């Protein structure tokens, strides 16, 4: 303990109200950096997050390698069919977990540290999570894209890659909003994990990730055709299938045919809707 510090309470530039944007950037980047430092020091989440979809890809691909001809449209190989499903499912699971770090911050009182600070906007807390999860899911998706290509399941071209990224971004935003909303609405991490657990696999099986709608009984086909995952999977699958246009029909749902553009539109509306839906909750919890 040193005995004196001359500038212990000297006037400081802190507290002078800087430009709002610079302040929001500073606080958001600092919060995002924290999440990445955590990831770098505890990489098991990332490792598992990359390994798991790869195992899906290899095992499921092998399981259905001898699927009867005609199961899939246009004589597509199952591996090529599955790739889009696994990419989307991975991004989805990652985003669904976005609320967990926030929930732990609530439980450990770290959130209070953030709330006592004069944050320019408390949306920075949410924004940091979104940035973090989005980057993470992009890294995972790239790993799958590359592995799928190495397994001979194909590679979407330049435009296809762009479409894939846009689709994943929309889905990630939507699900991250949902998960953050849950993280503030539910009482603790046990409940949050329970919800994640219950939502995860059923949404996978009730989508077109593993099998086309034509293969499903009608009731399941309806579910799959309403499942947000399907709206993300089908455009990406189309991008994998070869040259495409946004106006091409990618989904033959029981209620009608949807183009890639329509699927993206639905995802965009979903993302926007969920963000607007959780706004009041965040405002209440963070004000």
């Amino acid at each position, binding site marked *: 303990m040193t005995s004196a510090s001359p500038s212990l309470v000297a006037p400081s530039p802190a507290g002078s109200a800087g430009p709002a944007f610079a302040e929001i950037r500073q606080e958001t980047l600092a*919060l995002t950096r924290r999440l990445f430092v955590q990831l770098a020091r505890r990489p098991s989440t990332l490792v598992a997050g990359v390994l798991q979809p790869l195992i899906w890809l290899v095992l499921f691909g092998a399981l259905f390698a001898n699927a009867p001809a005609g199961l899939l449209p246009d004589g597509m190989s199952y591996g090529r069919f599955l790739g889009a499903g696994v990419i989307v499912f991975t991004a989805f699971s990652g985003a669904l977990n976005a609320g967990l770090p926030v929930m732990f911050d*609530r439980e450990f009182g770290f959130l209070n540290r953030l709330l*006592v600070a*004069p944050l320019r906007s408390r949306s920075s807390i949410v924004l940091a999570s979104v940035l973090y999860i989005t980057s993470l899911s992009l890294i995972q998706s790239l790993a799958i894209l590359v592995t799928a290509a190495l397994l001979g399941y194909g590679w979407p071209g330049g435009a296809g890659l762009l479409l894939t990224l846009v689709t994943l971004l929309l889905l990630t935003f939507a699900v991250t909003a949902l998960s953050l909303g849950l993280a503030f609405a539910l009482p603790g991490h046990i409940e949050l994990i329970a919800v994640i657990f219950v939502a995860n696999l059923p949404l996978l099986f009730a989508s077109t990730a593993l099998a086309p709608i034509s293969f499903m009984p009608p009731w399941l086909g309806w579910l799959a055709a309403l499942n947000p995952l399907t709206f993300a999977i089908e455009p990406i699958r189309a991008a994998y299938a070869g040259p495409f246009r946004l106006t091409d029909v990618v989904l033959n749902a029981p209620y009608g045919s949807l183009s890639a553009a329509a699927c993206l539109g639905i995802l965009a509306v979903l993302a926007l809707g969920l963000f607007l839906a959780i706004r009041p909750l965040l405002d209440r919890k963070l004000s």
Partner: protein
Amino acid sequence: MIDLQHVSKRYGGGRKATPVLALDDLCLSVPAGTLYGLLGPNGAGKTTALRILCTLLAPDAGTVRLGGMDALADPRAARRLLGYVAQEVAIDKILTGRELLRLQGDLYHLRPADRQGRIGELIDLLSMHDWIDRRCGTYSGGMRRRLDLAAGLLHRPRLLVLDEPTVGLDLESRAAIWTVLRQLRDQGTTVLLSSHYLEEVDALADRLAILEGGRVIAEGTPAELKAALGGDRVTLRVREFSDAQEAGRVRELVLACDGVRQVVVNRAQGYSLNLVVDNEAVVERLRGQLAQAQLPVFALAQSRPSLDDVYLQATGRTLMDAELAVAGQRDAKAERKQAMR
């Protein structure tokens, strides 16, 4: 610097729980530049009061002014003004201490150059060199507290609020924190700390308020409060361990003595007698009386009134009894929930 007027806060009242009145028309005024102590047993409302002060909690009623500003109307300005060191140290176990301070600096929008310098100063001030670059998860309680204090001081707040800053700390860390708090006060910072350690408040605080049941029941400087009680305290033991009968006999004898105001038999301390007497002269008279009655004197200690006596006078029980009484009632889980956002 701090002005709370008629602040009330009620918790719970949902389907399951009956509401708890944590603050009951609390009024508290802390002059700028003082080291102010908030003393009270667990459950008296200290933490709730501090959380309201720090804009973490909205009161049901009342006004909160910090440095002349309305903290409820402009919480961001209030947050810039104050540093808060919470009771439950919330640190990120994965980050190093230095990284945590850097994060804190960014949350308070320090300029990077200023931030680095400031972090260095605080590492010096709180002697954190040896471990600041280790992960927080490896820190002892004392290290965490020091880091938390550093985080609270990072933006050079004019008001520092600490919730039981030395609970469960080793003596060295406690002394270190006391030194820094005094230093801050000497340099003009207003410091408000809550504590249920009498000695801490007595030794540190310029002024204090005693909280009980969510209200202020006594307020002033430690000396004023003690002087207001009047009289000296005397502890008398005729033997190291007496029995009830003997204690009763001695009590009768002592009560008859001129200048003795009050005698309490303290069963918990081997039936010693706690006396309130007018002044020192009475003690000598007591000795005479006891010798006359051929009673031995194992110990006869005299002291000025302590803050515990102030508390006893105001509430009819000692601070420790109050602690024990609420210890069983408190629901750690429910309290954790209250603190969650």
